């Protein structure tokens, strides 16, 4: 596993490491029991400050995805791969069909991206709020 740190895209390096690790967990590149590269390895290969890598690993640990084993390194605890999110799932098929209808309707790539982003925001921004409210009400 090697992180590709883009110094120009404005996303902090530690977030890029978090995102790329999660992506690797989704794609099955990393599976439970795998060891993440050490802060020293990442520093050597990608010229990234070791404290940045440690910060990213603490964030992943907080989310329960990895665990540090003293003297051994940081290990993957659980995967993010979901069968329904793979490219041979029916959901993906529907999406491909929809994108092709959008293209037929004359939409440019940017228009499609904007629509998808907007729909995602509508679903997931509201979703988090509901989830938070539910948690709070069950907590009381």
């Amino acid at each position, binding site marked *: 596993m090697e992180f590709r740190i883009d110094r120009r895209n404005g996303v902090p*390096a530690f977030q890029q490491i978090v995102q790329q690790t999660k992506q690797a967990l989704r794609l099955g590149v990393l599976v439970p029991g795998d060891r993440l590269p050490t802060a020293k390895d990442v*520093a050597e290969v990608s010229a990234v400050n070791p404290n940045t890598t440690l910060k990213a690993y603490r964030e992943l640990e907080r989310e329960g995805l990895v665990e540090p084993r003293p003297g051994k390194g940081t290990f993957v605890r659980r995967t993010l791969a979901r069968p329904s999110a793979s490219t041979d799932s029916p959901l993906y098929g529907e999406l491909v069909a929809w994108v092709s209808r959008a293209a037929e309707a004359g939409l440019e790539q940017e228009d499609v991206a904007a629509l998808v982003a907007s729909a995602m925001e509508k679903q997931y921004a509201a979703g988090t709020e509901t989830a938070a409210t539910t948690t709070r009400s069950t907590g009381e």
Partner: protein
Amino acid sequence: MSNGMYAGDSALEAHGLGMRYRRGWALKDCSFRLPAGRICGLVGPNGAGKTTLLSIMAHVLEPTEGTLSVFGAAPGSVDSGRTSFLTQEKPLFRGFSVAETLRLGQELNPGWDQRTAEDIVRAGDVPFDAKIGTLSGGQRTRVALALALGKRPDLLLLDEPMSDLDPVARKELTGTLLAEAAEHGTTVLMSTHVLAELENVCDYLVVLSGGGVRLAGDVDELLSVHTMVTGAKEGEDLPASLAHHPLVESRISGRQFTALIRPDSPATGPWETDKPSMEELLLAYLRSPDALPLITPTAQAQDQDQAYNTRTVAA
């Protein structure tokens, strides 16, 4: 390496540090702290006092006023740990071979790490029997860095270390430097003009300008307390409702204004806000010598009584 890293021991503490040369003050009333284990960028325009500050830390120069402690002790004393200082000139004996240069490092430094030094030289394919005088600038830098790291320093001071390296060697040597720092918990302070070189490499920053500290602190903290604002100008100036936020720098281009502010409260209004990049933050402070300096709590020199001796009274 959890919280201790943030609040923990000081590698460097400067109290009212000043240095006067015949032509005037190169450094004046410089106070800041660098926690141990950090990789800190020292940034400033030419003549800002960077080399002077590094030389005082390396015990090459005595300050005219103020005090500096290295790991709680006087620079150069036994308790101040091992310090390596790689100067811009990278002085090496031209008539020595690479192997002889490393041998010298071994003879002069108890605790010398021959393997680390050799690995760094080997990674650049520099022949061990080549004379220093025949090496290219980049190869010489590599040997000098091997010498500095072979010493296994607690504090590594680098003055414009990568200036004569090509992009490939620069990335490779930066990686080596960071990996060594990660393994041994070395505190690194490196000066540079190339701001892009600092991004992702440094987790701490000290900005010097006009002989004084303009900005010091943890990179994430410094970035998070600043906001970049872009919008339409009001009349000939920034919107009046933005005026109560402390301003670092503003620019007007056509009908648009761009401002870097240090808001005390969320800066909401008819404009767009964004977090600055490290380069934007540094440029704004370097271009605005009159902006209010910012030294975050972890970068503030601690209680004067805890310094190893009392401060020389300034005139």
